[in-house]
């Protein structure tokens, strides 16, 4: 089964797990929210929900065993018409994170931290994120973070204890997180790429883990074919996902396309987060995937954060994002 939806469009995701969770309603909510999400891990299942519908507000969403937040594509240094204040919108994202009733334990940043890989751009993001309540931030690079030096600066800043060009894994409360790099050594005419060395590492990393271990994979470029005409996909993602087939719950979190999109394939849920900097057009709906200029009053509704909860005993993933409005 394969359904997908975009953040602002009609919802076509169904209750494929037959657990009574109305994801149609949920995704309408998501479309309304616009961007950003909280995730809670409960019983090996990743749930995400809107900021305003947190467990402490009696929404019926159980309190999670693990909560974290994803932000993406802060593009520090960008100063064109689509957003002249990427500092301000990132600060608003931090304010949103700090206002969450259920404090996330850490932040995932899925790349394009900077716009041009300039030291001062990374410095500014670091400084702003120090204002967030969660102190741990886990990164993967976007193509804008590895410009000109094949990612040396990125690795020096964020990837000292990682493998290869910056991939790594870690465990939090029984959940196995895998950060992948698919923005290096790109081939002419090609898409995002993981490469042989990283795929071998991934196979080895998950080989001896129990199938009941919840898996969260995060990378910059989508690990599914969103729109290859704009380069929105990863050429060897199928190989990576084949190593994850045995796991009951796999959640893939990406950025890069500056809009919310979700797709479910079997036990794998794919989700892309909004940017904190500027929106990009829906696939094929513009001449190029470049920054989309929207009326000033609409910008923050198209930016956001993603909040995730894992909840024990539930067999469905729900992802809700929150805009910066």
């Amino acid at each position, binding site marked *: 089964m394969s359904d997908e939806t975009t953040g602002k469009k009609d919802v076509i995701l169904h209750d494929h797990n037959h657990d009574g969770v109305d994801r149609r309603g949920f995704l309408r909510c998501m479309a309304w929210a616009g961007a950003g999400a909280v995730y809670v891990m409960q019983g090996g299942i990743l749930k995400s929900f809107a900021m305003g519908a947190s467990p402490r507000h009696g929404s019926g969403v159980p309190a999670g065993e693990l909560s974290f937040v994803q932000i993406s594509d802060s593009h520090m240094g*960008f100063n064109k018409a689509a957003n002249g204040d990427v500092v301000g919108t990132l600060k608003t994202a931090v304010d949103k994170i700090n206002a969450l009733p259920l404090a996330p334990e850490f932040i995932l940043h899925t790349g394009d931290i900077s716009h041009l890989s300039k030291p001062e751009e990374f410095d500014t993001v670091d400084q702003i994120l120090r204002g967030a309540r969660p102190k741990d931030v886990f990164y993967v690079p976007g193509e804008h973070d590895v410009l000109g030096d094949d990612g040396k600066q990125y690795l020096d800043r964020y990837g000292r204890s990682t493998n290869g060009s910056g991939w790594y894994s870690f465990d939090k409360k029984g959940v196995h997180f895998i950060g992948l790099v698919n923005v290096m050594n790109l081939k002419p005419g090609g898409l995002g790429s993981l490469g042989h060395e990283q795929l071998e590492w991934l196979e080895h990393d998950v080989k001896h883990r129990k199938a009941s271990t919840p898996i969260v994979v995060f990378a910059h470029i989508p690990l599914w074919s969103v729109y*290859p005409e704009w380069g929105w996909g990863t050429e060897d993602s199928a190989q990576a996902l084949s190593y994850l087939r045995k796991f009951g719950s796999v959640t893939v979190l990406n950025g890069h396309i500056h809009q919310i999109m979700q797709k479910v394939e079997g036990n794998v849920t794919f989700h892309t987060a909004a940017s904190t900097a500027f929106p990009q057009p829906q696939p094929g709906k513009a001449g190029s995937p*470049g920054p989309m200029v929207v009326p000033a009053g609409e910008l923050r509704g198209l930016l956001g954060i993603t909040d995730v909860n894992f909840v024990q005993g539930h067999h469905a993933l729900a992802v809700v994002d929150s805009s910066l409005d």
Partner: protein
Amino acid sequence: MNERIQKVGRVAATALAVSLVIGIPGSPRAQDEASKPPAAEVKIDNFTFGPASLTVAPGTTVTWTNRDDIPHTVVADDKTFKSKPLDTDDTYSHTFDKPGTYRYFCSIHPHMTGTVVVQ
């Protein structure tokens, strides 16, 4: 091989080109046309190299200008020439001395490809 990258606006680029031409001391106007090194341009708009295929004579200097709000690069498939990241209105030039077909792409957005044919 002759490469240069300049952070210049389109107007400034034009002014520079003009100043180069008129700055040749003692060149009679009639000889200007004949002695002017061959040049060609490729514009980057909407994540596309335009023209995607360019045919030039040997010795031609091709200049790429990024007119997008997103940085791009110009990188030969075989890496024999390679620009730095070009921000908006940045330019990159490369002189093609030998006949041949030179394929290139944007290493940031690899679905962007182009060709320079030198003959």
